[in-house]
């Protein structure tokens, strides 16, 4: 098809003030509805039973996609005279425009649509992308927002899913593994260390009983690394849980006369 000789008047419907008003109303309604959902759903989700909270939060990105599709389906027939010829022409033109003008935005937007269906992350998940680890608090068309443990909000474009590994700590479930690490002296016996640390986890009020508690021990150059792995029953308690395991675990090891070391042992040469 020769685009230059194509009669553009056949491409468009008659555009009047009323058409623009209708388009404006559709956009406004979809925009308002989306923001209403973004405001209401998280508030309602906070009051739902814990098992339903993550499900409710994931309504938002799906609703955004649905509203976007509805808006496009309503607006296109108002503007364009839809025939096969016009469709192919518009597709080619839009493709070129997207390719040159808004390539990065389009890449992220497409990745965002893929993310909604492939679900490398969902609202409420705890994920790591690069050096950033936090809770997914919002999924926009172009980007995902994380709230880190330090209460920083990090905005990351969806396009990162093409090039980077996404680490999802809970993958939609309501719990995730927490790890408390201890470094103990490698040249001294550690009698009962597994039982001691297992008891520490089993006495934590944050523990999800139904999940296993594991103690993993491995030797490193300067110390023996002991990792206590357990699951809290609530995602948001992960830092409290790790703190609880670490403080009580450390005290229990000291009480059992198991030497905890630092690497290097600062102050040992004073």
């Amino acid at each position, binding site marked *: 098809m020769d685009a230059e000789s194509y009669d553009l008047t056949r491409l468009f419907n008659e555009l009047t003030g009323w058409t623009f008003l209708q388009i404006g109303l559709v956009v406004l309604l979809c925009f308002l509805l989306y923001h209403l959902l973004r405001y209401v759903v998280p508030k309602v989700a906070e009051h739902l039973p*814990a098992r339903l909270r993550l499900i409710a939060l994931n309504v938002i990105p799906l609703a955004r996609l649905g509203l976007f599709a509805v808006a496009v389906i309503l607006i296109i027939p108002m503007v364009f005279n839809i025939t096969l010829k016009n469709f192919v022409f518009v597709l080619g033109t839009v493709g070129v425009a997207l390719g040159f003008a808004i390539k990065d935005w389009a890449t992220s937007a497409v990745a965002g649509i893929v993310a909604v269906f492939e679900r490398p992350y969902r609202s409420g998940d705890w994920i790591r992308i690069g050096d950033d680890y936090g809770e997914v608090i919002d999924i926009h068309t172009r980007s995902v927002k994380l709230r880190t443990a330090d209460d920083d909000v990090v905005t990351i474009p969806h396009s990162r899913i093409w090039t980077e590994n996404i680490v999802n700590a809970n993958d939609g479930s309501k719990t995730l593994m927490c790890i408390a690490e201890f470094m103990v002296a490698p040249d001294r016996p550690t009698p009962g260390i597994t039982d001691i640390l297992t008891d520490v986890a089993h006495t934590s009020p944050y523990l999800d009983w139904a999940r296993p508690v594991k103690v993993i021990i491995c030797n490193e150059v300067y110390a023996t690394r002991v990792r206590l792995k357990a699951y809290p029953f609530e995602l948001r308690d992960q830092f409290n849980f790790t703190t609880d395991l670490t403080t009580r675990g450390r005290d229990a090891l000291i009480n059992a006369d198991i030497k905890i070391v630092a690497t290097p042992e600062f102050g040992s040469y004073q």
Partner: protein
Amino acid sequence: MTSSLFPTELLPVGGYDWPRAPATSSLKDGYRRLWEKLRVLDDRQTDLAPDDLERMSGSLIPDALWSALRAHQFECLDKVYLEWARRKDGPHSVCAFVMMPSVPQDLLADWTRDRGLDLVEAAAVPSGQTALIVPDISSLVRRTMDGRAAMRSYLAELDGASRNVLLGVSSWTWTYLAQTSAIEAVVSDARCFAPFRDKALAELIRAHMGDEVLKSAASGNDILTEDGDGDLKDNYLKTLAARAYGCPWAAIRLLDAAVNREAETQDRDNKDKDGKKDDDKDDKATWLQDQAVPQLPEHFERIGHFVLHALLIHGPLAGGDLDAVLPLSVPVGVASALGRLGLIDEDAGKISVRESAYPHVRRILSEAGLPLDRL
């Protein structure tokens, strides 16, 4: 007291079939609960109940009903445990009887005394020939490092016991121990009461409160009326059984709490016009309007959940003991606030979950996502 509709078996733990409310009741209840949490609905007014009803003081439940229920559950215990408990020769075994916290705390102890069996309330296995009954081991369980060591010693002692031992244990304590200790290896058989469903509850209420006309404020129907197939026409008791998790004590207490309005005469004029003259008893109806599940204030909601959870696992606790099993300090006033909400009781310096509030407490903890008991 026996009835064909009452469950007579003790079920093995793991085989408890939790009663379910009809889907429409669950949806309505969930919807209402959500709006209450969002502070959109404040009360449970219904258009069906007459306007001039009054709050009732005292309990509607006759003592005979509680006695009959207790006698029936004693019979269930007899069937499974009495002969085993009186046996003097081996082989010896350790059994557990798991009860919801809404079952009266002294039930197993009373049964033991009534049947003349040996009873001990400490973590010890004194020598003897017939079975030893430990009515409640919850008080022996402490979710602390020392408590776990003590429990391990006790389980070792039970493992080598030279007589039969029956451990009474709360469903929460049992679930905690089963997930985190070797109790299931030591205990050869764990059982619990079978659930009371709508028909069993109807039978119990009819037998002892047959004079009352009990109507659901939600539907306006008599809750005990049956259809031609012998099924209850109204879903009230089915929903009640589900809300009480199948525990008859909890169900009857919930029903008693729902009677917050006194019966008034109604339709008298209509009946007089028809030329029928009934006595007052037939003209009166008692309306049942379920109480809302209490809501914990936001500023101590999280710690409140932990306190209630700890009380369910450990049974009654003194303030110091509560701090010991929670590695986070309990702010001053939390226990009093939970008491004002009607969720806990304080007695002799110890706080415990109020038996009548147990269904509410379990629901609150379930909604908050805390680990629950399993039967």
